[in-house]
């Protein structure tokens, strides 16, 4: 569903700047993003790439 597929993004960005090993391109998010609230644990998963899990805590909370 990417409006601009990855090869297209890489061609467009490298047209005006150099990308180096270690650079990251975040390619966007589909619609209907849920809000994250303090106390939630958020897991983002991409098929074949992995599952990234993060707890959300209120600023200043100890744990």
């Amino acid at each position: 569903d990417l409006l601009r597929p990855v090869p297209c993004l890489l061609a467009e960005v490298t047209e005006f700047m150099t990308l180096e090993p270690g650079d990251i391109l975040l390619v966007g998010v589909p619609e209907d993003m849920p809000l994250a609230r303090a106390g939630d644990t958020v897991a983002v998963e991409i098929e074949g790439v992995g599952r990234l899990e993060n707890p959300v805590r209120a600023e200043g909370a100890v744990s």
Partner: protein
Amino acid sequence: MKQGRVVFGGAVHGCTPAAEGRVRLADGRVVAETEVQWLAPFEPRTIFTLALNYADHASELAAKSSKDQAAFLTAQRSEPVVFLKAANAVVGHRGLTRRPRDAEFMHYECELAVVIGREGRNVPRDRALDYVLGYTVANDYAIRNFLEPYYRPNLRVKNRDGGTALGPWLVPASAIADPQQLRLTTHVNGKLVQEGTTADMVHDVASLIEFLSGIMTISPGDVILTGTPKGSVDVRPGDEVVCEVEGVGRLVNTLVDDWEPAARQPT
């Protein structure tokens, strides 16, 4: 003591000033300033850049913009407008900066650059200058014809390879009694084209540190490019641009033609 970073004889060296346009390498050798290749005097972590921090620059841009844009530019802003810049943009003193083929209006921006030396979060304004490691000069070129209203400034305006010169020296904070009392000038091929003073910053250095550390932790190696006064002139390949900040340094940069990217080779 002010410090630079240079390449000489295939290695990177810290250096300090020596007499008559020479530098003293950390190993004791003294060489001409023109015999070394200059890097930025420190390796930046996060590069914070002020979009508009001098009222006269905002007015100058407003005069060349649509009515809506002009209202936006000249509104009294309660908060600084800050964007980020990446490592690919950095180039040192006496460096070459490409004028991209697609540039119609490319101009210099002489800026006081503030280098952070201590980690801090929620730093109050009256303690903010304690977090400064030192100062250097920045020339933050802009490719103005790519400015558009949706997301400003975008990468084509402000994140070109080698589009931001930094240096020559990292001047320790103790050497600058008041960062708000420094004259700024730019000369193109020896002609004065830009002149201002850091006294005219809308948000002063201490306020910027308070603001940024209020959003996120600031860290050693972070740098704040604090904006530029009015006086934008289109520059062309071959032009020598010299940005000077009183007490901080004199940064030289030369514009060169764009070049063709390397032909793609079959792998």
